[in-house]
């Protein structure tokens, strides 16, 4: 189960793949919201924004268990553990915000020509938190190497004379 969630069958971490949609689409939703407020795009952009939040949310909900599986593998003494915890908390908040955002729009998105102020501010909140949280997530990979070369330790390892000496002793 853990191996499935970590994406070992795919050869690519599932979390790192699923997060692309919310990371791209919630800021895009904010952009479309702002355009409708400026009188550009009208109902087409209201709808686009709605589907952007929806698709992002679907992917984000799938990304939660995969992210948890990755985080549970990080050792407590690794500084990445704390970073992962912040990433987790921020993501919970902003996924909740996206869920409310979608709920507020579901009745009006097919007819209204611009986005109301409350959903717009939720989009804004989502985007800001997402930038912070996404950056932290990227740090986990690019600074701490979480889920990098995870499956291939044995395959890559070059035997050293030290190993050979140990082998001989065993």
């Amino acid at each position, binding site marked *: 189960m853990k191996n499935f969630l970590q994406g070992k069958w*795919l050869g*690519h971490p599932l979390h790192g793949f699923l997060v692309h949609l919310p990371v*791209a689409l919630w800021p895009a939703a904010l952009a479309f919201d702002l355009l409708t407020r400026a009188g550009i795009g009208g109902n087409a952009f209201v709808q*686009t924004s709605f589907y952007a939040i929806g*698709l992002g949310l679907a992917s984000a909900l799938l990304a939660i268990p995969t992210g948890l599986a990755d985080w549970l593998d990080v050792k407590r003494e690794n500084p990445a553990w704390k970073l992962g915890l912040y990433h987790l908390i921020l993501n919970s908040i902003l996924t909740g915000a996206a869920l409310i955002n979608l709920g507020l729009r579901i009745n009006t998105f097919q007819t209204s020509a611009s986005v109301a102020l409350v959903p717009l501010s939720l989009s804004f909140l989502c985007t800001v938190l997402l930038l912070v949280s996404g950056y932290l997530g*990227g740090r986990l990979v*690019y600074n701490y190497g979480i889920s990098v070369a995870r499956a*291939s330790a044995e395959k890559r390892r*070059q035997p050293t004379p030290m190993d050979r000496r140990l082998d001989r002793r065993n």
Partner: protein
Amino acid sequence: MLRNLLQGKFLQYPLHTLLVHFPIGLFGLSFLLDSLAWFVQPANALLRGAFYTLAAGLGMALLAGIPGLIDWATIRIDHPAKKTATLHLLLNLAAVGFYLLNFFLRRGTLTATTPPLFPFILSVIGIGLVSVSGYLGGRLVYENGIGVGRHRRWTEVPRQTIYASAQVTTPSGWIPVARAGSLKEGETLRVQVDGTTVMAIAKLQGVFYAFQEFCPHRGGPLSEGSFQSEQVQCPWHRSCFDVRIGQVTRGPAKVALQTYPVMVWADTLHVRLSPEFLPKDKGNTGQRQEKKREPVFS
């Protein structure tokens, strides 16, 4: 420096991998809206949305291409990931080509109320290409560690591996590898001896150190590591080693690095392997054989 900027070192986050979220997400949304337009009436709003998200995705794809190209160019020529990276590059170019065509075809039909078939087919092809290419890009990061820990290294990384042979040694068994002057302070060479031993040679405070290239933890490339006094830090999981004796100074690595004797003679760097690493020909009985050959190197 422009290259460091484009590689995202100031952010400590590779710029290409940050920007690619947007084309992937936006092309995905465009495809969703396109697909919905076959079922939901009136479809015009969805089709307009699909067009504008496609356009935004295209713009972001072109933007992401610039740091991507720089990243591709800085992967070592003989790196096993270079082929994957080239394929990733070509697939992305093809995807951008299809989306450009798609964009121009859709631009004329913005008032349509039924989904146009040919642009939809182009979108399907585009999504397919982006999926495969994105997967390859992910492999480059998660399997090959491209871009991981790169921001900690500020000096040049080796452009290619130097191939040396234990068959070609000085009379006392030293293997010539490269001109000592070719290495600047804080830089490294990557040397492969006879396909059996891969080592990194670093110049730190004017002194040369040779040590095993692959980190004993998960095989991170130490020739691309960062240095602090006599310590090397693996770019991937931040294990630290003392390059003088190979000892682990910080985990997660547990096994010490193999280090090799290195000397400069006649402005040429020479390394030495322990006898057990020499090729097992008929003469090699574990005792070092002295070969009377001239030093040859590239």
